[in-house]
């Protein structure tokens, strides 16, 4: 599968998503709802059932993107 990865540049921090209109978050049984782009080093929630879910980016901002 050809990967169309987009990088949203935010100064020094790079959030990378597989498409330019989608973010991914981790769904667990807890309240935490961060994007899956973060690395979870030792979060106990990961031992539970969890899913990575795509979510469309909805916003007014027109973000300049660099394509790889």
């Amino acid at each position, binding site marked *: 599968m050809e*990967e169309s990865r987009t990088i949203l540049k935010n100064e*020094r921090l790079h959030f990378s998503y597989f498409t330019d209109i989608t973010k991914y978050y981790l769904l667990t049984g807890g*309240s935490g709802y961060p994007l*899956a782009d973060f690395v979870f*080093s030792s*979060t106990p929630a990961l031992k539970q059932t969890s899913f990575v*879910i795509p979510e469309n980016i909805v916003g007014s901002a027109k973000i300049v993107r660099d394509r790889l």
Partner: protein
Amino acid sequence: MAREQRVEIIKKISEIRGSKVLCYVTGDRENVSTRIAPDVTPVFYRHLEKLGECKQIDLFLYTRGGDVLTPWRLAHLIREYTNRFTVLVPFRCYSAGTLLCLSADEIVMGKMSELGPIDPSVVNAFNPQDPNNPAAKIPVNIEDVYSYLALAGEKAGVCSTDQQVKAFTLLAERIHPLALGNVHRNYLLIRSLAKKMLALHHLPLKEGRIEHIVDNLTEKLYAHNHMISRREAADELNLAVSIPDTSFEPLMWSLYQDYAEELALSEPFNPSEKLIGGKTEFEVVSGFVESMQGADAFVFSGVVEKRDFPENGQVNVSILKQGWKTIS
């Protein structure tokens, strides 16, 4: 503003309403959002125990939604301490938040208040894979599945049993049968939950009103991101909406603004701003449960570090810990 100022606003609201006030804010700050989930139940319990039994509890609620079963548990827990439960909605109160409102005897809505439909998307291990990311499962919206079957019947003229089987087979070829089973179970669950939440009212609702509300909130708004204003909630959905007077509404709004400012809801969380040298630890608060008696915060903590491999200047963010933490 700090907690001291918020306590002053909470105290004023409590005096005006003759109630005890509990605030629940799930932050929607980009990159560190939080949601309604079962792990908040013991946090509510701690606050409710401190507040004690009383004639009315006002829940100040800001949320984009979350787990659909948690509102049922929270509503029951709150009603262990009071006969009259009301929700104060300053701004967004979507999905699972709206579901929680259904159990309230009164929903106080200002000009900016918004409720949302309760038509959840569901996901389980059998959901379709996201073609752009093999690690991700695509959620299936329950109403989309039923809408497809309705479309096949109403617009495409699928009426014979054979044609219905064909339409369903087509669907089952795209979505795993167990994922479809999960959709149907949740279709029944959300309606059942909404009805049971409305039945928790101190004064029972008239016959037919519950069905009207549930039908509207689950399938007749046609868009999951439909924003329901107080006028629509009161006049069309027939919810137990009350309008705050001109002195009370600014109080609700100023409390919301305080949380929005404290949680920096309008600006994305960017841990690289905290980076000093090659590696820095960070903590960010992204949710609150607060009353006059105390405060709990949902805290993400982790490490942000700069690496020069595989890409020069790459910043990596690792979340090491997340959860509710008592801060006061």
